[in-house]
């Protein structure tokens, strides 16, 4: 993968006739090349070149301090070992469940907030400001504060106690995985014995989902608000003349108009979710029994703690593929496919 689509001049000996066209080409494109050339060169190396290097590390034997790019035998053995390991399987489970729960909560909350804020007229700016505020903070700040809100000896549990609720959930310290279907799957999947972790919902993740939604529901709201502001007044008026109730209006008139915003929100928040790292590090780390471990943490620990460079690289390539599935079609559709 390279980005050499830049209209580059051919270097080296040129036929005499070409000299004039070359100078004309440079005259026309000199500024473009001067500006974009360095950017494309640098990003070509730092994005595409570096990804290629990491891919190469992922199929190498490199473990430990000494660089060793000797290909592994069999080539993909790092991947197969990693994919079979209980921890990485738990990570994939966690990031999937986290993404589904987080997207649902953030989008629903963002949509409700957008409608309420949009209709609050005079206090619109104030409320928008409040709900979007967490977005301006670092995930580390969010994680450090929410970690304590969901520490069993304090925070939410103090409130539950006061309300007379005896539950005392363990939140980020709870190792329970509910709704484990791995046993059932093992009997169905031919070959069996490939699932080495509990396939269910780790309860500890719920606290992280809440913190992440607190930080990013405002983003969904802001995008929905921009969409609502773009709906022509006539549509609302026509709907009200038809006697549409508020709920019907939002469901049948506003919703279809907001679809492009919904796609944007799902793509942006979805890829942020798959890349989760800082928030989890600050809030719960890998959690009890890897209940809140995510691929982002796995890559970091394998690479810089265990010095298992090939495993870390392989896990990061898996992350890239997960994100790529969402982002590449989105970029293609937005900037290449549908000519604007």
């Amino acid at each position: 993968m390279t980005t050499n689509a830049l209209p580059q001049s051919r270097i080296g000996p040129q036929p005499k006739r070409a000299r004039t066209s070359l100078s004309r080409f440079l005259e026309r494109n000199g500024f473009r090349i001067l500006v974009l050339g360095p950017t494309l060169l640098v990003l070509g190396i730092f994005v595409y070149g570096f990804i290629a290097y990491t891919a190469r590390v992922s199929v190498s034997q490199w473990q430990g301090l000494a660089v060793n790019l000797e290909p592994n035998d069999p080539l993909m053995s790092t991947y197969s070992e990693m994919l079979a390991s209980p921890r990485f399987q738990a990570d994939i489970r966690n990031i999937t469940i986290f993404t589904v729960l987080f997207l649902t909560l953030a989008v629903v909350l963002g949509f409700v907030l957008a409608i309420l804020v949009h209709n609050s007229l005079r206090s619109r700016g104030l409320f928008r400001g409040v709900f979007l505020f967490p977005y301006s903070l670092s995930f580390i700040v969010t994680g450090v504060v929410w970690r304590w809100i969901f520490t069993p000896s304090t925070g939410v549990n103090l409130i539950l106690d006061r309300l007379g609720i005896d539950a005392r959930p363990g939140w980020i310290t709870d190792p329970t995985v509910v709704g484990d279907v791995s046993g059932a799957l093992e009997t169905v999947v031919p070959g069996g014995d490939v699932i080495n972790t509990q396939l269910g919902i780790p309860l500890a993740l719920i606290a992280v989902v809440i913190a992440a939604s607190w930080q990013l529901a405002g983003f969904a709201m802001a995008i929905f608000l921009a969409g609502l502001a773009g709906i022509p007044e006539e549509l609302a008026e026509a709907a009200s003349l038809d006697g549409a109730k508020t709920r019907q209006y939002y469901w049948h008139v506003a919703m279809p108009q907001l679809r492009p915003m919904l796609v944007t929100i799902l793509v942006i928040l979805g890829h942020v979710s798959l890349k989760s790292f800082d928030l989890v590090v600050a809030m719960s780390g890998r959690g009890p029994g890897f209940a809140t471990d995510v691929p982002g943490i796995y890559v970091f620990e394998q690479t810089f703690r265990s010095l298992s460079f090939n495993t870390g690289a392989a896990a990061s390539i898996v992350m890239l593929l997960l994100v790529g599935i969402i982002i590449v079609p989105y970029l293609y559709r937005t900037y290449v496919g549908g000519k604007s």
Partner: protein
Amino acid sequence: MTDRKPGSNRKARVVGLVALSILAVVFLTPVYVMVVASVKPPNQADAIYMWQLPESLETSGIEQAWAKLKPNFVNSLLLVLPATIISSTIGALNGFIFAKMPFRGSNVLFASLLLGMFIPYQVVLIPIVRFLQYVNLYGSISGLILVHVVYGIPITTLIFRNYYEQIPSEILEASQVDGATPFQAFTRLMLPLSLPGFVVAGIFQFTNIWNDFIFGITVIPDPAKQPITVALNNLSGTLSIEWNAVMAGALIAAIPTALVYVVLGKYFVQGLTSGSVK
């Protein structure tokens, strides 16, 4: 606004305002916890007093946190300011080309460039460390600036491209008739109109880079040189530190971007929408 509009009747509006107020209180709860804990006296410094109002206002928590975090706060400033300015400037030039001087294949090129802001940075960490070691910038703030500038180019280019696309091309066409070079067209015509673009891109980058964690912890192993987010995470894992000092640390790390948000909120929202919606 006409009264016939759906959702505009009086009862619905009151219900809406009450719901909004409740949600606002819930949303501000973590901020309350952080701010109030920071000013609590030592006898209320433990997390089990989280919901209590402070018996007296004291600065011991903030002083304790500031003593630990001050060098890292300064590091973050030394990092964020140059990285923001450099990446915004490069983004302005690139955005100008993509918006006003498109060429065959420029859309594909632009999309490939944008991919750089979506990748999980985990996938480039090993080569980044090796590269910075090779050029002798590993472990330094300059190295971190370089990394933030490079990976900031896609988003600043996007923001400026969107910004320049709103500026009518006629302005430029007139200048071409006058025989101005593209560089002159950019510096004389576009730059004077670019201040809002720079504000939007600048705020976006300031926030992004200030809040970054993964590059900071990867590129700089020396705690004394690390940015504030990394230092805060370390502080939060330190058992000997009082809980209210940790909250005060979070507050200190939050203040710069929170200030930018409160003062320049309008531009903040613009950056956010232009950074994600076409």
